[in-house]
């Protein structure tokens, strides 16, 4: 009874498989001769707006970036109030954990002018700039955004990648600076101290986000991160390389430095203001430091990607969050810098202590020493990022 199966020998199967694989491989590579440019134009990739008939909105955001009811984690007071007032049903998803990762997730759709299934996405300045440069983001209608026009902080207007404030509207802003755990080490004032003080050796982390880490280093060298030369960048990189090679810097991290700092495995780090305020709530000895040389200011921006079919609903939501009272409610929960003018006065009513916190409502002195990293074109971005990645080990 085994004869019928005889023709299928191991050798035959292997040659067959290898043969077809080779054929397919050549066929595949010949048909896929390279890739097309990923850039889209406004005329080439138009999106319909179905907001008039469909009262829905898909909103993708980062985790812990929305106020949650103290008693019921499923309730989001500010968002629920929007849904009740506008009748727009919002599907809120916390599926953005990392700018690069999210880019990888949606790049094929957006490069091919297809829907990502999301109406609002929230991305950091440089990633927003990249997507705008690639023509992947829809322009909003300023007439539908009166609150934004009235209340957006002056320091966040007319940014290089969105001169007219109608493509990328800040959701929250924040500072990248230094942080230390006072129960493990003494106070830290400067970037140089962080990178060289001997008692910190092996107990320091920096951010793998190039613009934050390198921006602080550029400033510590007396250079301006919003306008620097390749040579100045290299100077800063040499400084960083020294700290990596002497094993002074332990690791480069995303948000995950927070638990390590709390546990005391690391004594000090380059970190983000909002995280540090939240940690300080549990351990007041954890402090955020804005070094005198300067801090980095970044924003996470609301963007409406191409082929999102509810631009009108998105505009309604964006404008809603630019009402000072709503913005204060949100800022009281997330503890990042509130981009809305007038929210400080509203915050007085919720929590006077938070209203006085310069890391949520920065004063002029702090704003004066905060810089936004220079806008890079594609070639610069690839070059600087490659050099930085080589130093941080990948």
């Amino acid at each position, binding site marked *: 009874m085994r*004869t*019928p*199966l*005889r*023709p*299928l*020998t191991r050798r*035959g*199967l292997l*040659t*067959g*498989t290898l*043969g*077809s*694989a080779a*054929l*397919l*491989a050549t*066929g*595949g*590579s010949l048909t*896929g*001769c*390279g*890739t*097309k*440019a*990923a*850039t889209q134009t406004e005329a080439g990739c138009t999106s319909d707006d179905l907001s008039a008939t469909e009262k829905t909105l898909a909103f993708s955001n980062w985790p812990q970036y929305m106020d949650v009811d103290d008693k019921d984690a499923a309730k989001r007071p500010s968002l629920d109030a929007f849904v009740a007032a506008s009748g727009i049903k919002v599907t809120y998803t916390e599926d953005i954990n990392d700018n*690069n*990762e999210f880019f*990888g997730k949606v*790049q094929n759709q957006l*490069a091919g002018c297809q829907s990502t299934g999301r109406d609002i996405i929230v991305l950091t300045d440089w990633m927003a700039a990249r997507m705008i*440069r*690639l023509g992947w983001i829809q322009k909003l209608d300023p007439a539908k955004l009166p609150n934004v026009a009235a209340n957006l902080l002056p320091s966040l207007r007319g940014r290089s990648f969105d001169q007219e404030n109608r493509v990328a509207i800040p959701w929250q802003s924040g500072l990248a600076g230094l942080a230390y755990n006072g129960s493990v080490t003494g106070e830290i004032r400067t970037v140089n101290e962080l990178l060289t003080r001997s008692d910190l050796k*092996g*107990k320091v982390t920096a951010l793998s986000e190039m613009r934050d880490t390198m921006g602080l280093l550029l400033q510590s060298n007396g250079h301006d991160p919003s306008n620097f030369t390749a040579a100045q960048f290299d100077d800063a990189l040499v400084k960083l390389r020294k700290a*990596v090679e002497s*094993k002074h*810097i*332990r*690791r*480069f991290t995303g948000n*995950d430095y927070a638990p*390590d700092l709390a*546990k*005391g*495995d690391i004594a000090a780090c380059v970190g983000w203001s909002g995280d540090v305020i939240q940690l300080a709530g549990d351990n007041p000895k954890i402090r955020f430091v804005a070094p005198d040389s300067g801090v980095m200011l970044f924003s996470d921006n609301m963007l409406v990607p191409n082929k999102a079919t509810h631009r009108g609903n998105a505009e309604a939501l964006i404008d809603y969050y630019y009402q000072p009272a709503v913005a204060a409610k949100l800022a009281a929960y997330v503890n990042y810098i509130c981009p809305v003018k007038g929210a400080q006065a509203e915050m007085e009513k919720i929590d006077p202590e938070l209203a006085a916190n310069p890391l949520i409502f920065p004063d002029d002195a702090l704003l004066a020493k905060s810089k936004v990293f220079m806008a890079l074109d*594609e*070639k610069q971005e*690839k070059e600087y*990022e*490659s050099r930085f*990645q*080589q*130093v*941080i*080990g*990948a």
Partner: protein
Amino acid sequence: MTALAQLGSGTPATGSPPPARPGRHRLLPYLLLLPGAAWLVLFFVVPLAQLAAASLYDPTGSLSTGYVLTWAFGNYPEALQAYAPQFARSFGYAGAALVLALLLGYPLAYAIAQKAGRWKNLLLVCVVAPMFTSFLVRTLAWKTILSDNGVLVGLLRDVHLLGPDGRLLATPVAVVLGLTYNFLPFLVLPLYASLERLDHRLLEAAGDLYAGPLHAFRTVTLPLSMPGLIAGTLLFFIPATGDYINAELLGTPNEYMIGNVIDSAFLVRLDYPQGAALSFLLMAAILAVVFVYLRRAGTEDVL
């Protein structure tokens, strides 16, 4: 196409009686293969071909200009030159972890298979149970175990195995320990399957012929457990070499492995040709190591 041609001409002349309906019966194995083959072609062969093409794109291309296939074979030596240390580290760490895992895993598998008695199933569950939690969570747990202010480091400092400022986290030791722990079940389970079938009478016979326990192990137990040992080492070594989570979470930039570099090439630096070339180099290197290993181990049956 080749496979179909084979089908028509491949009947060996062994003189066995022709089956009743040869056409249908001969097709049967191929029909049975069809779903699996289609799956593999769609989700393995096609992406692999695409990756191969990407590794030969013109490296000056970019997302906004697109990439042109210029058969840029120079991507390979360039990538290898730039990241040779990470390659060496990947194989070094995976190799060290494998040795450690064998020292831990072989006695463990042997004990479960031969000596555990009624505890056998419970012990097997214990080996497999950690796999029910996510890989990431398990690795994060190791961060706590190896933490600078943790019990383990404190103990090692007390017995002066670590200096007063010594640490485990963020060292190569932590990465190797993490790799060992995370992939250990892949080694233990196949080994267990082989050792479980070991016939005790063979060991008794070896004893009757004046073989000491060590000699009996070398001439009886070890050769009989070879299939499991080989399958286990491969299942351990291959994913361990390509792993980047352990180096990322338990190591520092000085411990980064090739997986970390590939991850950054695709997601951060957007250097797709280099990322693809590195992936193929890693694949080729692993295949070469595995091939040599299988030849030396003398088991053609696995291939």
